[in-house]
């Protein structure tokens, strides 16, 4: 299948399939378990949900910077990018094959395009198991080759897949992208509007938006919502060495950061940037 992308396009306007193609070297895109194989979720129809022929995840092989690559692109428009049995197995299974290749001395560059609310509630524990397998594969794989995550928007990256983002070697975000464990609406619902007003866009983005995450060291590169900019940032990420200590392994560093927080005082995004910058504990 040929997927062509116009230059100077907003990345967030692209479908998952187009996003994957946009990151791969021109003409190298090849989809695995493509939509014509119709490997759908068997669990949705009985619950009154129309399934998708790719279950909302595109697995694409190809090259990035002339090196073999695999891009795992979640379609945020299908069920909010929720991870079910099939979509989760596509991601975990591809990462496991990339690991096998890396262990045989043939590294494959893995990219995760993270647009997801987390586990798909209709598939519940099947999604939970799949996400644990995704986590396991990322940790094993990233000692061989950097695992690069992209949170471009518009869904953002939440739940168990936000944990997966936390495990990545290198995270690329746009200003539109959001990264957090619990989504703002869930927090408002569970803890009340006084805890977080999910409709206050400025507050939400100052808390979990791409600009804030990069400024506080929880993501690595802030890029424009532009195809060339994001593709470029991903290439640069692969030219960087595997981090000596991944972010999720920097225990002393983050324990010190948390120890410096006075939990009796109010805290917002701008104040946290100042605090962590002044403490000299930014990355």
């Amino acid at each position, binding site marked *: 299948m040929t997927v062509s992308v116009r230059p100077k396009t907003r990345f967030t306007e692209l479908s998952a399939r187009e996003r994957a193609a946009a990151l791969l070297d021109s003409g190298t895109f090849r989809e695995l378990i493509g939509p014509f194989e119709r490997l759908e979720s068997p669990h949705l129809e009985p619950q009154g949900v129309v399934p998708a022929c790719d279950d909302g995840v595109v697995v694409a092989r190809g090259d990035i910077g002339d090196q073999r690559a695999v891009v795992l692109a979640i379609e945020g428009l299908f069920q909010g990018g929720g991870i079910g*049995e099939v979509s989760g197995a596509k991601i975990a299974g591809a990462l496991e094959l990339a690991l096998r290749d890396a262990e045989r001395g043939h590294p494959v560059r893995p990219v995760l395009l993270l647009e997801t609310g987390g586990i798909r*509630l209709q598939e519940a524990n099947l999604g939970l198991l799949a996400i*644990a397998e995704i986590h396991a594969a990322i940790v094993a794989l990233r000692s061989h080759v950097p695992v690069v995550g992209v949170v471009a928007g518009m869904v953002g990256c939440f739940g*168990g897949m936000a944990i997966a983002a936390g495990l990545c070697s290198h995270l690329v975000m746009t200003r539109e992208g959001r990264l957090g464990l*619990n989504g703002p609406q869930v*927090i408002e619902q*569970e803890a009340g509007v006084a805890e977080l007003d999910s409709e206050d866009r400025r507050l939400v983005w100052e808390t979990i938006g791409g600009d804030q995450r990069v400024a506080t060291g929880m993501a690595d590169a802030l890029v424009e919502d532009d195809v060339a900019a994001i593709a470029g940032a991903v290439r640069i990420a692969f030219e960087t060495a595997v981090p000596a200590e991944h972010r999720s*392994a920097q*225990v002393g560093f983050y324990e010190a950061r948390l120890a410096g927080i006075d939990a009796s005082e109010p805290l917002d995004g701008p104040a946290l940037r100042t605090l962590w910058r002044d403490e000299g504990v930014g990355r």
Partner: protein
Amino acid sequence: MSRGRTWFEALAGATLDGEPASVLCADGTVGDERTRFLTVVPNAEAKFTRARGGELGLEEGWTLARHVREAVAVDDDGDRRALVAVVDVPGQPYGHREELLGLHLALAAAVDAYATARLAGHPVVALAVGQAISGAFLAHGMQANRILALEDPGVTVQVMSKRSTARVTRRSVDELDKIAEEVPATAYDVASFARLGALHRLIEGVDAAEPDAEHVETVRDALAEAITSARHDDSTDLSGRLASPEARRHRSASLRVRERLAEEWTG
């Protein structure tokens, strides 16, 4: 007393308080195996107030990571102790401050530490004695080589509390229960979770809330068997979860996807 603390004290033989007080860690033995026990318990004084009810929050994630990584580093000479995660976690805290300070990363830190320990050759065993919910279970339990659970009505495995799921999906609790009868993956009871094939063993006949000495011995024996089984397993990944007869039946799509990917991988 929380179930986590009950089982931690019974198995580790320790009654110490942790720092922070929500994470208990002690070294003991299971049979001949040196074993580090870890659990998360409620802490009414917790610095981050949304994690006072036993939730796995910022401090808990990073502290678990510290204790697990310490064992990995100290045992670098090759004699790698077992790690037992006693699981009784109602979920993760919901809060603005939690998200701002990187709750997803704190949970990733615990995931990373347990996975790193497993890959390094530590037998990692999770023992579900109470709730095993969502991100908290991903961070504390799901990276184990072997998962054990007590068959008890209070042992539940799910991705969100029933109350929250009802609100998010705009369904009543009764409706959710009805769906769960048809779709085991959406059920809360541990027997339904066992049907998905990821459990090494479901331990029957044990009072999970108030165990007597005999119950503790039953669990100790099960832990010893799980540790031995992990020691003798050549693989340190999670592939065993898909190899079980239950998984072949109830996770057949997970297996089919992997088969197809392998066929198409090199083109």
